[in-house]
């Protein structure tokens, strides 16, 4: 049997890291947009 486990280790790590990083980026961007939106709404002057 060939000794090529390294390739599949690399692949599995990359898959987890990339999808995880993307999910994280979505969460961060969502948080940033929500924050900006809330600031805009909350800063409404009613006087």
């Amino acid at each position, binding site marked *: 049997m060939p000794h090529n486990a390294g390739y*599949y280790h690399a692949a599995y790590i990359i898959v987890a890291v*990339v999808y995880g990083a993307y999910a994280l980026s*979505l969460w961060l961007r969502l948080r940033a947009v929500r924050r900006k939106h809330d600031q805009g709404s909350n800063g409404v002057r009613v006087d």
Partner: protein
Amino acid sequence: MTTQFTSDVRAPAVASPQRTRSGISWWFIVAVIAVAATYIRAIYFTPLEAIQGPAQKIYYVHPTSAWVAFLAFGIVALASIGYLWLKDLKLDRVAESAAEVGVVFTSVTLVTGSLWGKPIWGTWWTWDARLTLTLFLWFIYVGYLVLRGAIEDREMRARYSAVLGILGALLIPFIHLSVYLFRTLHPMPIIGKPSRPSLPNEMLETFALAFVSFTILFIALFRARYRLAIERDALDAQERG
């Protein structure tokens, strides 16, 4: 001078979409569990393939990502047609979300395909019909996203993206045909490519689990990206109006 801070104020309901609930969605939790289960099963509870060796295990993550990449593009194409027909920005948000998630899955498909090709076929890249088609899918996705990024006007962005989404979908069969014709001309030397063996049940089950898990992951990521699209459009409407 007082400024009333009120959290009841939301973006005007008419022009912009409603805001979304915050918090982690169930889809995401299920996706993480499913993918983790796939990993554990693939790594520890699935037999090794005798001829190809451990690298064969890439098979559980590569075609599964590829399927999602093409599924996402199908969604982009359908949403694009829908948008040009109905002019509903919701459909454009669907297209934009599917495109972004799709390009991530396409990139992973290309990288894992390369990592699979090297030990199995002896080369990092081969102009294999499917890999080449995936490469072109990637180019179309990137063009689509760059186009979106280059247009400020919301409505024009939706319209132009929809046109590109539809044309891109039309292109796919032509690329497929071109690559096929090209390869019949130029038999590519592939070193030691094993013919695809029929999979024993354990491997099939792992593959099925992987297939379902990554599809759930796609749904979770798509929903999150769609939420982002809604929030961003609401924010833009508020900043404008």
